[in-house]
Every structure is written in structure tokens, then in C-alpha cells.
């Protein structure tokens, strides 16, 4: 209101001024302009400097804050032991309040939402916020302190461990290899899958399907699913992706939408829009496809199968006859041990590990998980 009035007045008096003496007006204008430039320059420098200083203070603050947090975390860990059982125990369920901030894997979306909804029902005063940004971004967020829990669909890296992240394994999921629904191919061997993603097999005809180019769809480099997938196949950084998508959902959409596409997703995310391929362990020689050079897959290949089976055994899933499963762990990382976290976060983990939480996990990940 006021500004408007002032603006109006200025205009009017300006008109009146223009009607007055022209000369003084001109001289004043020149002076005024110079002054404005000077002021502008000064303000600019001031802003830039202030911005820079602010940034400096801010980032330092964060670093220090992290230091303090860590220090406190340890202290809390000690004192927390006494009251630590509090939230996890029975008594104060209803009164627990606060937030649990989570960030991470897009493939864990379904699991995390199901758990979060049930959790918030149980603790109505606790808000759970979840961002689905990919595993590495989730870990990054926990390290930075912008999330309490990072959802990872892969194990944590040594660097992340060094930065204080602690791995809390929640479940084991499978990685499903999927194709579009019209694709007649029903199963692949390990070697075939490797060759597809290495770019050696480029047509579905070589796999017993119809003549159709293979479009390899994968995830972005920060994805936990991608890392777990490439690790399981021993293909780290060797995959030739035609498309790299930013989320599990995007992979599914792309595969569903593209004839001849193949992609990988976490198996609990799969829905009817794509068809899941059965993966077999034995090397088949079908459709005139000569067995891939025999030395290769048995070398680093066997090893990776072993590791897949090991983690499968870990999750309790039997590797069927000749069938094998690519698995990825579902991990919720925290900065420091769980007992050093805030009460809501501790309650979260207690909930996930409770019978209720396990039931939810079982429902989503399928009975195979038990």
C-alpha cells in the first residue's frame, strides 16, 4: 500500500520537476546516475561478500554440528542405555513424538511406505518423512545429517563406513530381471544375462525369442540396485546400458513401454506391467547359441553365484534346482549405532524388528523371505 503511494507520488512530482528547469535536472541526473552506479557496485560487492561469508559460516557450522552430533551421539549412547529401552519397551508407546527422516533407495519404496504407515499408526505423534533419491544419495544424506536413516539396497562401502555409517540389515530382497509383456523369452542363464548387459548379445533371436533388438535398461550410477546387480554378475562398470534410468519405477515404465527392452528392478517392486524372467544356473545350448567361451563364466562367474547364494542363504531363501536368484540386501543405515539415535529412530528399528514389522516385510517381500 505504502510503496504504491510513494511510487505514485514520485511519478507526479517527477512530471512537475520535468516541467521546471531543465538544466539543473540534467546535471542532477548525471550526478544521480553516477551515484546509483556507485551504490549498485557497493551493494553488489557487499552482497557477494556477505553471501560468501554466510556460505563459509554455514558449511563450517554443519561440519562442527556434525562433530558435536557425533560427540553427543556417543554420550547419548552411554546415557541412552538406561532409558534406551524406553521407546523400545512397552510403557511410553503412545506418547512418543518427533520425526524420523529417511532418504534413499527407490527400490525400497514399497517396503518403506508400508512400514512407515503402520509405524505412524502405532505412534501417531511421530512423523516419518521419506525421500526416494537412490541408495548413494541416501547414504550421503545421513552423512550430511539431513536424514536420520538412509535406505540402501546394497551394502555400505568402506568409505561410508569410515564416515560413521552403521549398517542395519532389515531384509533381503531379490533383484528381478524383467522384460516387456509381449516378449516370449521366459528364462535366461547367467551367462546370457551377462552377455546381454555386456553388449555381446544384441538380438532376442539369439535367446530363442523373435527377431527383436535387445535394449538394455539399467539404473544410474548411484543406485544400490545397480551396484547389487553388477556385483552379483561380476560386471562392475562393464555394463553397456542403452538407457540409464533414475528410479525403479522409471526402469519398469521404460521396459513396459519398449518392445525388446530388458531391465532389472527389486523383485518386490514388480507389478503386472512387466514380465519377470526366470534365471537359471545351468548353461543351456539352445537355439543354436554356442555356449559362451567355457573358461569365462566358470571363473568369476561361479564365484558370484556363490556370493549370491550366500546372501540368499543369509536371507533364508532356498536356491531352487538350477534356478538362482540375484539378491540385494535392504539396509537402513544410521550415523552411529542404533542405541545412539533419537528415541523415534530407536522406536522405528524396534518396530521393524518386531513381529508386526516382520509380518509387513514378509507380506511385501513374499513368503520366500522366511
Amino acid at each position: 500500500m505504502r510503496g504504491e503511494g510513494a511510487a505514485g507520488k514520485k511519478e507526479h512530482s517527477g512530471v512537475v520537476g520535468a516541467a521546471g528547469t531543465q538544466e539543473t535536472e540534467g546535471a542532477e541526473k548525471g550526478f544521480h546516475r553516477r551515484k546509483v552506479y556507485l551504490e549498485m557496485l557497493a551493494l553488489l560487492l557487499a552482497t557477494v561478500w556477505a553471501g560468501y561469508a554466510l556460505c563459509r559460516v554455514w558449511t563450517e557450522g554443519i561440519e562442527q554440528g556434525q562433530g558435536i552430533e557425533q560427540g553427543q551421539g556417543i554420550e547419548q549412547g552411554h546415557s541412552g542405555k538406561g532409558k534406551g529401552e524406553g521407546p523400545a519397551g512397552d510403557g511410553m508407546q503412545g506418547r512418543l513424538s518427533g520425526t524420523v527422516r529417511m532418504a534413499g533407495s527407490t527400490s525400497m519404496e514399497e517396503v518403506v511406505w508400508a512400514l512407515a504407515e503402520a509405524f505412524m499408526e502405532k505412534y501417531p505423534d511421530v512423523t516419518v518423512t521419506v525421500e526416494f533419491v537412490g541408495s548413494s544419495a541416501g547414504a550421503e544424506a545421513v552423512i550430511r545429517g539431513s536424514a536420520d536413516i538412509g535406505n540402501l539396497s546394497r551394502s555400505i562401502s568402506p568409505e561410508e563406513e569410515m564416515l560413521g555409517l552403521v549398517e542395519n540389515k532389515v531384509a533381503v530382497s531379490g533383484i528381478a530381471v524383467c522384460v516387456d509383456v509381449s516378449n516370449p523369452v521366459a528364462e535366461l542363464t547367467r551367462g546370457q544375462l551377462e552377455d546381454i548387459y555386456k553388449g555381446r548379445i544384441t538380438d532376442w533371436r539369439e535367446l530363442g525369442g523373435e527377431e527383436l533388438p535387445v535394449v538394455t535398461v539399467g539404473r544410474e550410477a548411484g543406485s544400490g540396485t545397480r551396484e547389487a546387480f553388477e556385483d552379483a554378475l561380476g560386471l562392475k562398470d562393464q555394463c553397456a546400458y542403452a538407457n540409464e534410468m533414475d528410479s525403479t519405477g522409471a526402469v519398469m515404465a521404460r521396459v513396459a513401454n519398449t518392445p525388446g527392452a530388458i531391465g532389472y528392478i527389486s523383485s518386490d517392486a514388480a507389478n503386472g506391467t512387466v514380465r519377470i524372467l526366470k534365471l537359471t544356473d545351468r548353461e543351456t545350448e539352445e537355439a543354436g547359441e554356442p555356449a559362451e567361451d567355457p573358461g569365462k563364466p566358470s571363473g568369476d562367474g561361479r564365484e558370484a553365484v556363490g556370493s549370491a547364494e550366500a546372501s540368499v542363504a543369509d536371507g533364508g531363501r532356498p536356491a531352487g534346482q538350477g534356478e538362482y536368484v540375484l539378491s540385494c540386501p535392504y539396509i537402513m543405515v544410521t550415523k552411529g549405532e542404533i542405541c545412539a539415535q533419537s528415541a523415534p529412530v530407536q522406536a522405528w528399528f524396534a518396530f521393524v524388528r518386531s513381529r508386526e514389522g516382520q509380518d509387513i516385510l514378509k507380506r511385501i517381500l513374499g513368503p520366500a523371505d522366511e
Partner: protein
Amino acid sequence: MYTSSVIGSRKRGAAADKAAGAVFFCCAAVSVAAVAAIAFYIILSGLPALGEIGMKEILMERVWKPGAERQRFGVLNMILASVEGTLLAAAIGMPIGVLTAVFLAEVSGPRAAGAVRTAVELLAGIPSVIYGLLGAYLLTPLVYKLERKLFAGSQGHQYTGGANLLSASLVLAVMILPTVINVSEAAIRRVPPDIRAASLALGASRTQTIFRAVLPAARPGITAAMVLGLGRAMGEATAILLVAGNSVNFPLPFRSVRFLTAAIVSEMGYAYGTHRQVLFTVGLILFLFIMLINVFLNRSLKKGAGQSG
């Protein structure tokens, strides 16, 4: 000096003047400060990686493997993809845009022009995600069909399923249309009527007049339209992310590519350490491109002003 005005006394008027001036000045300073702060920050955070890895590797190497054991940070493929995609988009979008502008300014009646103009305005208001989605669901299957026809017998072509440089350029071409149309229409309208009259009087047909007299006269403005369109295309990320395939490859029309903008958007979330710094360098490169485009824009606008004035 000042005569008293009807609105208020001289003194109050002067005070209000000063206050208003300060308000205007502050508002004007916001955008200047924003640009200065962005430039400052981008340069400050983009330079360290250049020093650490070396300008040569970043600008001249093609291998981009930020997650590997031995990290490689060659941005060249992405720079080429951005430049090529942008130019290709301009090559497709410019003729359509300029001819639409001709239609609006020279040919059409007011009703047809109104309809087209409404469509163009709508086009300008559609968020880029929507362009990307439409591109991903409508355009890529078509492009994939074309791809399969073209590469039917060829060995060693990696099929992209339609998510490639060509799709990205097509989407960008549509996205720059509103800018190109609006700016070139204004330029064509600014051409003095005498030029048309003279051309027609010399016996030229209407089409000849448009192509030989009006468009050459409007050239600086049309150049400005192109440069603005290039800037828009260069800076687009969201739509591109959905249709370009996003693998780092040497940019050929039927190759999956990653643009500079897409790299920043999709990797900044999880990047840390050197990788993060390199992404800021990518931002710096993008910033320099936009600056370059602006310099061209100013030059062409000045030329335009010089010619008509």
C-alpha cells in the same frame, strides 16, 4: 527548483521520492545480486576440480566413470551432446518457428492468428516435465520404429529403444517453438511497411516479398530468436532426462546420450568428493555456454537496433 504539486508539499514529495527510489533500487539490486552470487559461487566451486584433475582430462577426455575404482571424469561427450542436441533442436525448430511467425505476422487473418497465438501461449506455459513425459510415451516408440528400420541389417548398433539424441532434439525443438515464434514475429512486425510496399510495387509476389524483402530485413531479430531458443534448449534438463537415454556416449542421432544439465540433475544427489566438484565444473561449463549465448544475443540485438535506428 520544484514547484509545489497538487499531491503534497514539496518536502513530503521529495522524501517520498527518495523512499520510492530506494525501493526501486533494492528491487533492481536483487536480480543483479542473484546473478553475481551465482556466477561467483559457480566459478568458486567449479574451479577446484579443474585444478585437481586438469583441464585437459575434463574437457578433452570422453570416458566418464565417476563411480569406478579408477575414476574418470571426461566431460567431452556430454559437452558435445549438449551442443549437438541444442543445434539439432534449433535446426528442426527454427524453420517451423520462423515460418509460423511469418504466418502470424504476414499471412493469416486475425481469427486464424488468434487460434495459433493461443496455442503458442499454451505451449509456452506447459511445464517441461510434461514435454518429457509426452516425449517418453509418444515420441520414443515412433523413434524406436525408425531406429529399427534404419539399423535393420547393421551389426554393432546398440539399440536405444527410442531414447536417444534424436528424440531429445525433437522434444527440445518443440520446447523452443514459443520463444522462436514470439521473438521472430515481433521482429517481422517491426519491419517498416515501406519495404513491403516497395517490393510489391516492383512486381514481386507476396511470397517473394516475404522471403526476399521482409525476412532479410528482420534478420537481426530472427537471429535473436534463434539465440534465445538455443539458450532455452541448452539449459533444459527435466524433459531431456526422460528422453535422451542418459548413458554417456559420443553423440550420434541414434545414440543414447547424457546432456550436461542431465548429468548435474541425476548425479548431484549422490556425488561426493571429487565427483561432486566435477559436477560443479560441469555447471561452470554450462554457465559459460549460456554466457556465450547471451553475448551473441546482445550482439545481434545491437545489430538490429543499429540497422533499424
